[in-house]
């Protein structure tokens, strides 16, 4: 476990979380969510929890992003607030 690597990933995690909350374009927000999932997958893989990281990469960064984008396409792309 390399702590410098951890610090970088954690900073990026906070940044992507804030971006996903602040951005008005819901398509962009779901893609930033995919980046968030991938970063947390890196963190888990680095901590040695490879099974959890695998699940996060497949479900969080992969399928759930696609499902969210599909939902955005069939609802609305602009956030109301």
């Amino acid at each position, binding site marked *: *476990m390399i702590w410098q690597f951890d610090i970088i990933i954690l900073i990026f995690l906070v940044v992507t979380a804030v971006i996903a909350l602040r951005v008005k374009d819901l398509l962009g927000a779901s893609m930033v969510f995919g980046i968030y999932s991938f970063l947390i997958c890196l963190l888990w893989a680095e*901590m040695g929890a*490879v*099974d959890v*990281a*695998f*699940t996060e990469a*497949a*479900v969080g960064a*992969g*399928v759930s992003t*696609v*499902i969210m*984008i*599909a*939902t955005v*396409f*069939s609802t609305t792309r602009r956030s109301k607030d």
Partner: protein
Amino acid sequence: MKFFGLLSVIIVGFLLLSATKDFPNWGDEDSPANSGPVSSFYIEKTEEKTKVPNMVTAVLADYRGYDTMFETVVIFIAGIGIIAVLRTYGNNESIPKNQVGDEGAGLLARMTCSLILPFIQLFALYVVAHGHHSPGGGFQGGVMLGASYILLALAYGLARAKSCFSEKRTLVFAALGIFIYVGWGVLCLVMGSEFLNYSALDSILPGGVEMARSHSMLAVEIGVALTVTAIMFSMFSNLSTKGRLDKGL
């Protein structure tokens, strides 16, 4: 209102951050999770008793088989719920004009997908079949297999993907996965042991008690993978077409 939201977030965040210093250190041997009798039993005895090197899979599929079984049921219920809410029959609602038609993506994307799809599916099957020796298992492999059908739907249109994996087949596979898992538990019951106690199956599976548990884990992982594959594809196809299952993304 936003000010109070920010205030509560700051207060709760401060409380959570101040609580983290009471946590045991990462990898601490004396932490309650590591020093208890249960986890040391799993770490020391899993490979000896089940012949499965990946103890995460052994705990998920064998020692806590009930947990995984009902997780699979939860996924099944989620998929059935999405179908019950979204699925519409008949053409009462007019199809919006701005949706991409059934022709799918462009030539380049189609060719790339047709090259990469067999490898995705093969890797997904490897993850399912090799889940008790390496990272992975039924959930991950099932999600990847479902994602390969989603990719097929994105590149070639939903009609092409539905010709491989029709709605009826989706539901049958989702139910069949749970049937395999529960049926394996009932088989243990029939062989004269507890529900999901795989060591009872050593008389019908080759290789002794340990290998019977290992093979049984593979069987229930296949069940989990079937359900997850079917539900993932059904979720995508219902969400992307507002339940009409005609023209997708």
